[in-house]
């Protein structure tokens, strides 16, 4: 396997990372809560995709459309039952309660899923023809997924720049009090942001299960990985999450190939320590 091949597969992994990491990033920016259960939405998305595929056997891109309504409802409930009750407390209390509630939610989802589903690894064996470009073999499905992720990122970018909700999301991230003063309904926007963010994770989950295999216990370590990406790229920036995700994905696949696949999961943590030592504001953040 050539170097280019490794970089290409890393690029793809990075794209999947970027999607979910951006979801985590906007939730943090708007809700001021780090959702430790974020990775669980990805896991559930992957599991739902597997279920839909096993039932209907359709193309993964249609699976995305099929599971979105499920996740809109699920994240609405999650926000309503667990996140909203802790609003309106003092800042320290929100911090402690949010860690407890989202960590507890993550454990509950993980363990109940593992109990119902079993601890096995599963993946979707969906394949298309492969393209060969200058000695690099790229399966078409991977290329399409990458294109889909890029298109989705583009749509999000315009949504944030043009629509009222998108502008409100940015305003709250920049200055919560200011946003409240100009009459932005923070509770409503928070809910919408949470739903968008977790749905992004669920969509990333669909691609995850197509490209790799999943287990019910992968959620927490994925959340940690996404937090590393968010710190790497700087908070709340779509570009930062995307670049951070790509950097991590490529590094992981290079390390996985040259050092050993056992070591690729450790890359994110070393990257986190390194970035905190050298550039704590993130690669693209300003002081």
């Amino acid at each position, binding site marked *: 396997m050539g170097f280019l091949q490794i970089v290409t597969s890393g690029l793809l992994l990075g794209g999947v990372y970027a999607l979910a990491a951006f979801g985590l990033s906007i939730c943090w920016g708007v809700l001021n*809560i*780090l959702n*430790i259960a974020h990775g669980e939405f990805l896991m559930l998305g992957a599991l739902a995709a597997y279920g839909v595929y096993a039932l209907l056997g359709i193309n993964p891109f249609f699976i995305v459309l099929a599971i979105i309504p499920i996740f809109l409802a699920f994240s609405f409930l999650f926000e309503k039952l*667990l996140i909203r*009750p*802790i609003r309106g*407390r*003092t800042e*320290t*209390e929100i*911090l*402690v*309660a*949010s*860690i*407890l*509630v989202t*960590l*507890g*939610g*993550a*454990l*509950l*989802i*993980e*363990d*109940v899923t593992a*109990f119902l589903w079993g601890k096995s690894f599963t993946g979707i064996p969906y394949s298309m023809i492969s393209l060969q470009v200058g000695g690099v073999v790229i399966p078409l499905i991977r290329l399409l997924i990458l294109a889909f992720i890029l298109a989705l990122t583009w749509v999000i970018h315009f949504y944030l720049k043009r629509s009222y909700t998108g502008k409100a999301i940015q305003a709250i991230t920049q200055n919560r009090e200011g946003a409240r003063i100009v009459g932005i309904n923070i509770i409503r926007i928070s809910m919408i942001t949470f739903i968008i963010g977790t749905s992004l994770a669920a969509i990333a989950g669909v691609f995850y299960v197509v490209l790799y295999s999943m287990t019910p216990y992968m959620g*927490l*370590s994925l*959340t*940690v990985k996404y*937090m*590393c990406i968010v*710190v790497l790229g700087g908070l709340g920036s779509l570009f930062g999450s995307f670049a951070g995700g790509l950097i991590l994905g490529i590094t992981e696949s290079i390390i996985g190939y040259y050092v*050993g696949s*056992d*070591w690729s*999961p*450790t890359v*994110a*943590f070393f990257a*986190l*320590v390194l970035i*905190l*030592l050298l550039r*704590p504001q993130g690669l693209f953040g300003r002081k």
Partner: protein
Amino acid sequence: MQGISNKIKIIFFLIVIAVIAFLPTVTSQYFSVFLYQLFIYMILAISYDILGGYTGYMNLGHSCFFGIGGYTFAILANKNLGLLVSMVGGMGAAACFGLAISYPFFRLRGAYFALANLGLIILLGLLAHNLKPLTGGADGLFIPIPYALSAVYYSSLLLCLLTILLSYRIGKSRFGLALVSIRADEDVANAFGINPYWYKLAALILGAIPASLAGGIFAWALTYINPDSLLGIEIALVPVTMAMLGGTGFVAGPILGSLFISVVQELVWTKLPYLHLAIYGAILILIGLYMPGGLIRTKAFQRTLSRLGLTERLYWYSPKQISGL
């Protein structure tokens, strides 16, 4: 009932300690094992509370020190270095690890700090799996030093008492006041001449030492360790769940929390092979939603505590926080 004098309190505690120390001679071995595990959990919860409670930095990765202590103990014991040297080695390794992570990780605050430390556990678990020549990988390590239950029991009891004393002394001292002021507002504390980094580092190391020794004792008693038993997610949840359930920032909180969970564990967990993590999760959600101050700040316990004359520490919280509890 404020009239109970210090002397009577001390005598009362000495009697309790004497009874606990006397227990293994009259009760079954099963009960002794239960108690020794309770002590280990208590040490973890109280040592977590030194950083997590007083300074408010939730360290979800506190069991890192436990795992490092246990693993270093096992590695050194396999090199035939004897019990004491191996224990001290584990302690030193954990303290060095705390020193090493403190500089990058104390740049994170709040939820980021918590989650990054959880990541450290996952990282150490991966390292324990991958560094096969050192840790034995997934196969784990055997500990060649034979153990006696009574030795394990008394050493964990002693360590537990010392940890309680340490946390209690910190709570009473100027040092503890500095830690609490960091929790209230780190920037203001800094402006008043408290260097937050050094204080947080001291709290981290003071918490790391008992946890690493507990890890050593735990590994010794297990006789066989693997990545899951020392660095698994279930053991990682022990300190934070117990301390938060009992109530943080006050030594009686983690003691109460670990007692409560150990008893529940004994009654429920042994009969239920699955869903342990889910139960932890449900407990965490319930604490977060309904009882952020922990058991100790509920009315019933407040009354008992005030009878024992132990309430003063609880009011270190700002008035705003008290009203919410």
